[in-house]
């Protein structure tokens, strides 16, 4: 029951850090979606771009997160503030699932439907926005869901460079060998990840084309 009292006592700080955590994850996911979906569309439409784009995103994914923070530190403007650094790193990690699922989603659209659209005189832009993206939306969303769940976990590491978030508790707890502190970071993070997973999963099923 120590944990419970700890939560009661520190509820304000927990709430603050949870919001900070959400902010890191939210902004980075938004950026990843804004960058990743266009890149996914490009790689689905121009096969030459497919390998370079997905390859780069793949390589980024393999860089250990602490090392990535380190690499980004000397970058001007970005390296100047810890939260910018954290958001950029999280965005880079979130790109792969978004790009890959946009690519798969568009490639998975029934070719006869695309051909009908083209044959009826839709422009490339109309084809993308009225046919391909609406039909790929649930696949794309499942990529976003993966990105969010991974980001919630990764964002705890951002505290190591002073970007805040629930990782604060975890690192403090580790330093002080204090389990309550660690749980104060880990439990809200787990709840965030689970609710994002559930919420986006629900949306994904609702938007799945018949």
């Amino acid at each position: 029951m120590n944990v419970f009292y700890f939560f009661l006592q520190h509820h304000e700080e927990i709430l603050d850090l949870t919001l900070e955590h959400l902010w890191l994850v939210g902004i980075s996911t938004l950026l990843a979606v804004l960058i990743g979906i266009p890149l996914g569309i490009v790689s689905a439409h121009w096969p030459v771009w497919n390998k370079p784009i997905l390859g780069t995103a793949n390589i980024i994914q393999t860089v250990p997160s602490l090392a990535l923070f380190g690499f980004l530190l000397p970058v001007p403007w970005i390296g100047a503030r810890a939260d910018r650094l954290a958001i950029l790193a999280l965005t880079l990690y979130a790109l792969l699932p978004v790009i890959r699922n946009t690519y798969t989603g568009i490639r998975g659209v029934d070719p006869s439907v695309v051909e009908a659209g083209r044959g009826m005189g839709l422009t490339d832009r109309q084809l993308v926005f009225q046919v391909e993206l609406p039909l790929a939306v649930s696949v794309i969303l499942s990529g976003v869901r993966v990105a969010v769940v991974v980001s919630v976990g990764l964002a705890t590491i951002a505290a190591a460079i002073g970007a805040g978030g629930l990782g604060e508790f975890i690192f403090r707890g580790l330093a002080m060998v204090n389990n309550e502190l660690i749980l104060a970071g880990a439990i809200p993070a787990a709840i965030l990840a689970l609710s994002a997973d559930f919420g986006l999963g629900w949306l994904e099923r609702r938007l799945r084309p018949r």
Partner: protein
Amino acid sequence: METIPANGPVIDFRDVVYTLPNGQPLLQNLNLQVQGGETLVLLGRSGSGKTTTLKLINRLLTPSGGEVRVNGALTAENDVIRLRRSIGYVIQDVGLFPHFTVERNIGLVPRIEGWPAERIQLRVEELLQLVRLDSQIASRYPHQLSGGQRQRVGVARALAADPAILLMDEPFGAVDAITRDQLQREFLSLQQRLNKTVVFVTHDLREALRLGSRIALMEAGRLVTVLSPQDFLRSSDPLAAAYVQAFGEGLDSAANRGTS
């Protein structure tokens, strides 16, 4: 823009060659003219190049050699979007948009052409009536329709912006014999009223004889001959004769089974 000779062909293939990027030829030396208001049937076996020929008309494919003209103008020089919107296209696999209702499927070209909403709605109702679908169907999604209903919607969608040219790729392929018979009958009465220039693809000789004003017989990427239905039945061309025999035997043996 070139001026269109009043009596010239609406669709004109001249020495058209189509080769895949890997060098494999799909169409060789195709010369074919389609006159205004006629129904030209492309008849041929699976893989003979019928769909390829059709796609050269609305420039889903561009010829590797020779030229394709529509209304006298080279398709390769035309604005491809304008060209496609002026040609109705019923594709082989119907290809209805699964995320659009029937109404939106049919009204798509009018909508992107900027028609006002009321006009689109009237047009959709008119077209549903034309292809004999209940207007209640308008709010349904394609997966809520039967195969025959889907094919009717496909035809209605191709007719939406009232194109003068209609390309139909085995539009009555995937339905039972009775429904097909009905669709063919409706096509004939529709064509009598609308008087479109139609290129109609089929591998069914009976359908070709029934619907076509002329039949273009294709085999292995080549145009073998172009004949009227009457001449086709009497043709001495070996391939045409083989078709007539194959279908004729089918009819005869079926008729004789009960009596012998």
